[in-house]
């Protein structure tokens, strides 16, 4: 399975409807040769974790611009750990104030992308840090 593509679940947790970033990224990832599953707005952490395991993804990308990332991002990371799926990398993006970053890293998020991050920089990070799992 050496040439298995990187599989990514893109998800918008919570009630936030600002999906421009998530949708632009979904296209970007597809164009970069990744397999992308985008589940749309308004997903609960439970739904996201279920989909990540079901789809056997290598990475979960969470996007939230409502300010609820402080609760929602750690909830996804924690539930993945509880389900024994902590080999799935979790990253996040959105409007994330500086002071919220360390607690999110501590909760298990591996990277956070904030306004101004270029599409290529995100793709590069994935290529460097995510390996398709066998």
């Amino acid at each position, binding site marked *: 399975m050496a040439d298995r593509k990187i599989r990514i679940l893109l998800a918008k947790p919570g009630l936030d*409807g600002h999906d421009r970033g998530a949708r632009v990224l*979904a296209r970007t990832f597809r164009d970069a040769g990744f397999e992308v599953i985008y589940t*749309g707005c308004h997903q609960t952490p439970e739904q996201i974790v279920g989909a990540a395991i079901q789809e056997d993804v290598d990475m979960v990308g969470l996007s939230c611009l409502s300010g609820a990332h402080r609760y929602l991002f750690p909830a996804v990371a924690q539930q993945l750990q509880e389900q024994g799926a902590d080999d799935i990398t979790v990253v996040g993006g959105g409007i994330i104030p500086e002071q919220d970053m360390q607690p999110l890293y501590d909760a298990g998020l591996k990277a956070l992308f904030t306004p101004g991050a270029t599409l290529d920089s995100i793709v590069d990070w994935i290529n460097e840090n995510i390996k398709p799992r066998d």
Partner: protein
Amino acid sequence: MFTEELLDKSSTMRKKWEDEVKKTVAKHADQKEKWTTVSDLEIKRLYGPEDIKNMDFEKDIGYPGQYPYLRGNQVTGYRGKYWTFRMFAGMGSAEETNQRWHYLLNSGQTGLSTAFDFPTLMGYDTDSPKARGECGKCGVAIDTIDDFFTLIKGIPLANITTSMTINPPATALWAMYCAAAEIQGIPLTKIGGTIQNDMLKEFIAQKTLMCPPEPSVKLISDTVEFGTKYVPRWNTISISGYHIREAGATAVQELAFTLRDGMEYVEDVIARKGLHVDEFAPRLSFFFNSHIDFFEEIAKLRAARRIWAKAMRERYGSTDERSWWMRFHTQTAGCSLTAQQPYNNVIRTATEALAAILGGTQSLHTNSLDEVLCLPSDHAVQIALRTQQIIAEETGVVNTIDPLAGSYFVEALTNEMEEKAWDYIHKIDDMGGMVKAIEKGFPQMEISDAAYKYQRQIDSGEKIMIGINKYNTDEDVEIPFLEIDDSVEKEQIERLNAVRRKRDSRKVRECLDDIRTACKKGENVMPYCIEAVKSYCSVQEICDVYREVYGEYRDPGMY
């Protein structure tokens, strides 16, 4: 527009100028090959009489207050009255938002505008599992009329207009406003304001979702009918392009999709309620974005008025000029602001506000410099409000009506916006209307294409955002940061539980049953909603009835 003689003369002079341009460019090349708007519309080096020679002065330009209203609805322009200074505000608890409202009114604001938090916007109570972590974050949390009383404390409902940005639960929140007015002894005929209540753009762009498109439009027609009969000063819908643009649409897409949404509502009210267009169309209102491309925005707003007037008169046979007026609110573009070097946002917002005013807006929200990062602080809001006041009171742009009319460029661009918008409108007509187009994913995918293209242009440096891809600095600018404490959620849940304990739960059940029956029979839900909120039914309880009867709509996640 021009005599043959003038056009001939212009043509000769133009050739001479073009020759000079060629020679100059051969020596000093232009800084770039293609000059485009932020929406990627190509702009010519120069515009002249030949670009607007086919315009008919009477039919296409005319006078303010006269068809086709290109030059504005008001015969006196801004001399009689400035636009309404209406800052969108809401955060945390109802009490906190009420304080902000009083602060804004004391600072010279002339109308109120409510931002609700996500649970309220989506029709969930604060203690719903889906609402965790969201309470008060992006606006004010309202669960029952008890919160609403706190929100409007000390606000003279008979003398001020209030706009509420609420969509799926619009019936419930408007019912609270109506009920609160009645309880204060103010007749419904005296209150004025706007509910956004535009679900089509939710499916297209903003994504606060509840029921499928068809029943969503039915609920909207209920409010239009109720307003027409009982609350004549209320704008029961604010047909919105703002969110369509923020989602990544071009100016033309914003214009076309918004106006086609408006046409869909007009057609539904006529068909479903049997009202004549002129009974309700005068209370339809609109809401546009003002983005950073100065002339494109002015042209878009001018074109919007002309398209709407034509559509009302020619497409729907309206004979009341009040139906022909496109009345609109504008907000400067949140998506044009940058988290980097945030003080630059003041300049962007001022430019966008100026475009909105030169485009003839009747109401305006100016974004605060910190809105890209958090809810605006008092100080940042004040600068944003002062931006409007400076434009109104110092710059002199209000002295004369529609000062850019007759500009070769502005008129040509206005015409181009209109033509391109009609192309989209006719395409959507051919699909069977906007509900059908949305079901096909047409406007959603058009916007996705535009958003993706724009982001690539930013990343490649083809389009510039200062602080993002040019003149970047490493300097970390500290700005005061307004944060909503997580304790707001706990306190709001306590308040909600207290209301649940004290209300008459049998009455609550009866009221919800009445709404359910009205939905099933296809009756107007509004009178039942007013009774329900008076009996302390919550926003979620009412919306759960809609979800149960009409089904729940989930975002299909198109990209």
